[in-house]
């Protein structure tokens, strides 16, 4: 069988000592970079790119790929321990992961995050291997109407994902969408809400918002509450998820992996979106949705798998069509180019050794990440024992430096502090931060997709129902919306429950 031959040849390449070495360097660097808030795989790959000049193509690509998916492993660490997303894609992990940590279950959270990431990564590589070219073609079929429908569906599924008041969550989402409009309008080029400040012309970056709203505000809130002790509200309970926790996480991990992978193959597909969607989905599918937000392990397992699967999926368009989906993939393209290879539809036939070698190295890399992260759980958990008065200045410092490292912008450092204060105030008033971030991320994309769709159809709204993929997503969105409305009606009219029950 041809595929088997290719895979064996690929492993032969991936297991060469040189390639193994660079795989390890990549995954180690990725994990470290993922742990640090703000600093991400993009910066790490950009910095290491010229160094790849001096090493041959295959180990260079193996290393860079390792940095990318490795970062998704490390991102959950600070999310769980101190409520600061190490990567923007780990924002959702803060919601339940941090609660688990305060209940003494940090070990279980970190463990399931690593395991879920491994399963997702491995599944992603298998899918990549089997279906890359046809998947890439499907991904191209996603145009503005499909994106609009997908984002609308995501917003509706996730809308009331908070554990509190649905209306408050919607308010936060609206605020997020408004914040997302700050910047230059993509379609007309007009500045919006930029207040004549040049740095705002490109909008408010997701990193300052996420780190400010979650991390900095958390520090302010904690400094009020915790007088002499540390972060733990309950004694530490073991370092490994229990059998029960494994059982509960099994399906979320699978669902997260599949969902994440498909979001990853889409141009512009983003681990933030897939982790939010996974969280929303798990909450909707759960028999006890009220547990979410208070330490439900599914809320860690699903999203962490989803964001890893998305990074694997992001390789599909690059390796099968030569089209980079996002900035990291574009840098990978650069690494190819430095070695005289221009990826395109012919890469798999023109350079099979490169293609299969890099693919097989991803299995090995994911295993390395698991091996790197699991033993470290015991070490990371000790961070929670550090007296808070020593911990919090370090946290603040890392947040500020991390944000600065992204664009060398002192303005963004100011933004982080501003959002920290805003987050502190909103959280004191018991508002949820997650819908706000979702609004900031999805709002602008939804708007652009809507307007591009209408430009394409020359103003006809029918474009959303005549295109099959878009129509499907809208149908799913409508289903969830109706279901939510029905249950709201039932909840607010208990005396009319019988009649509501018969129509439901």
């Amino acid at each position, binding site marked *: 069988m041809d595929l088997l031959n290719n895979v064996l040849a690929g492993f032969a390449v991936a297991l060469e000592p040189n390639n193994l070495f660079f795989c390890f360097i990549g995954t180690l660097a990725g994990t470290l970079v993922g742990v640090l808030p703000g600093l991400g795989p993009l910066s790490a790959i950009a910095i290491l790119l010229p160094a790849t000049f001096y090493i041959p193509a295959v180990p260079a690509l193996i290393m860079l790929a390792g940095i990318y998916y490795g970062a998704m492993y490390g991102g959950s660490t600070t999310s769980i321990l101190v409520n600061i997303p190490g990567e923007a894609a780990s924002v959702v992990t803060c919601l339940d992961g941090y609660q688990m940590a305060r209940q003494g279950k940090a070990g279980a959270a970190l463990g399931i995050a690593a395991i879920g990431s491994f399963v997702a990564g491995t599944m992603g590589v298998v899918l990549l291997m089997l279906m890359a070219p046809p998947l890439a073609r499907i991904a191209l079929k*996603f145009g503005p109407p499909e994106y609009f429908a997908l984002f609308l569906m995501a917003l509706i599924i996730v809308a009331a994902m908070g554990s509190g008041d649905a209306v408050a969550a919607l308010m936060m989402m609206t605020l997020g969408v408004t914040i997302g409009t700050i910047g230059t309008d993509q379609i007309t080029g007009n500045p919006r809400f930029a207040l004549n400040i040049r740095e705002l012309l490109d909008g408010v970056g997701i990193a300052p918002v996420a780190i400010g709203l979650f991390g900095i505000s958390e520090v302010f809130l904690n400094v009020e509450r915790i007088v002499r002790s540390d972060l733990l509200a309950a004694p530490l309970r073991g370092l490994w998820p229990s059998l029960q926790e494994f059982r509960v996480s099994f399906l979320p991990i699978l669902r997260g992996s599949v969902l994440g992978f498909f979001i990853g193959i889409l141009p512009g597909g983003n681990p933030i979106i897939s982790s939010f969607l996974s969280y929303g989905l798990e909450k909707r599918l759960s028999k006890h949705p009220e547990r979410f937000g208070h330490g439900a392990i599914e809320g860690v397992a699903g999203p962490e798998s989803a964001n890893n699967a998305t990074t694997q999926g992001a390789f599909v368009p690059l390796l099968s069509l*030569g089209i980079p989906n996002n900035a990291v993939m*574009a840098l990978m393209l650069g690494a190819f180019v430095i070695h005289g290879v221009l990826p395109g539809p012919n890469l798999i036939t023109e350079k099979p050794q490169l293609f299969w070698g890099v693919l097989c190295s991803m299995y090995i890399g994911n295993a390395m990440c698991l091996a790197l992260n699991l033993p470290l759980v015991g070490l990371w958990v000790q961070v929670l024992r550090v007296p808070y008065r020593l911990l919090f200045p370090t946290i603040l410092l890392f947040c500020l*430096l991390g944000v600065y490292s992204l664009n060398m912008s002192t303005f963004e450092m100011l933004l982080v502090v501003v959002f920290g204060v805003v987050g502190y105030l909103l959280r004191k008033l018991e508002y949820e931060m997650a819908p706000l971030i979702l609004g900031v991320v999805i709002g602008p994309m939804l708007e652009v997709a809507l307007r591009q769709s209408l430009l394409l159809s020359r103003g006809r709204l029918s474009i959303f129902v005549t295109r099959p993929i878009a129509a499907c997503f809208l149908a799913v969105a409508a289903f969830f919306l109706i279901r939510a409305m029905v249950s709201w009606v039932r909840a607010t009219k208990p005396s009319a429950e019988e009649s509501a029950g018969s129509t439901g």
Partner: protein
Amino acid sequence: MSVTVRIRCLCIALGIVLLSGVPGVVRAGEFPERPITAVIAFAPGGAPDLLFRPMAELAKKHLGVPVVIVNKPGGGGLTGTAEVARAKPDGYTVLMNFGGGEIVVSPHLEKVPFDPMKDFEPIIMIGHYPSALLVREDSPWKTLEEFIRAAKKSPGELRYSHTGALGLNNLTTLTFMKLAGITLTPIPTAGGGQAMNMLLGGHVEAAQIAFPVAWPQVHAKQLRCLAYALPKRSEVYGDAPTFAEQGFDMRFTIAQGIAAPKGTPKEVVKKIHDAFAAAYHDKSITEVMTTIRFTPHYLNSEDFTKYIREMYDYYGSVIAKLGITATK
């Protein structure tokens, strides 16, 4: 924890943060003595990164100090460009992607935070790449002629994706539409990759993007180039035809070179120039340029300054003649 301890902790944290912003002590001596900051005004992963990161690595050998690439994206290239314009003219801050649309096109259409002609000292030009009009390989129009005929038959029906209403690519199409007397519907996207994906996915009929972005697909026979905007054919772009040879006198290219803030001393400019000229002639850079389909075109400081001036005036006249304004 007492209030004083808390305040002390916060002060320490703030202090560390502020200290990291203090500039290094400057000593008088030979240039260069410390690393040079090379700004790319776009997000990582774009065409400038592909070319300038390897070049910076090579230039390091000749200058003796690292050339550190820093991406400062924003405003379609305006933010990073403006920062270099305002930087100290001591040679330690340079702009890597000088010469593109934000220098020669945007200033005619909107207010930009710098003076493209007065705020910079061009050092060296590395090359350029043209804008190209593409359709899918399986579309019914094999030549520009056929495309124009189809467009005339149904004005506004054919849609093309581009990379920004005020950018060089869209300017190319607007000029083409005026010269050919046709109307196409523009669909704005955030960049070359997105515009190309729209075309590949069948959402639009044509795309106007930088040729290097489309090259892998043209090479793999997924996309067809109807025309590109160079005055004469270049073997870098294979058998694709130019606008000029089909009757449209159009020249729209994005030049890429290095510039320093105005007032940088001549000896410093010369040192940077020599280092990058050596890198330019290195075989590995030639390979990179060929791979990404960049047209190598070396110009020294004076010629580059003249070239930019010419291009600036040329695009200004095109915009004025066509009556294109920012509100369009």
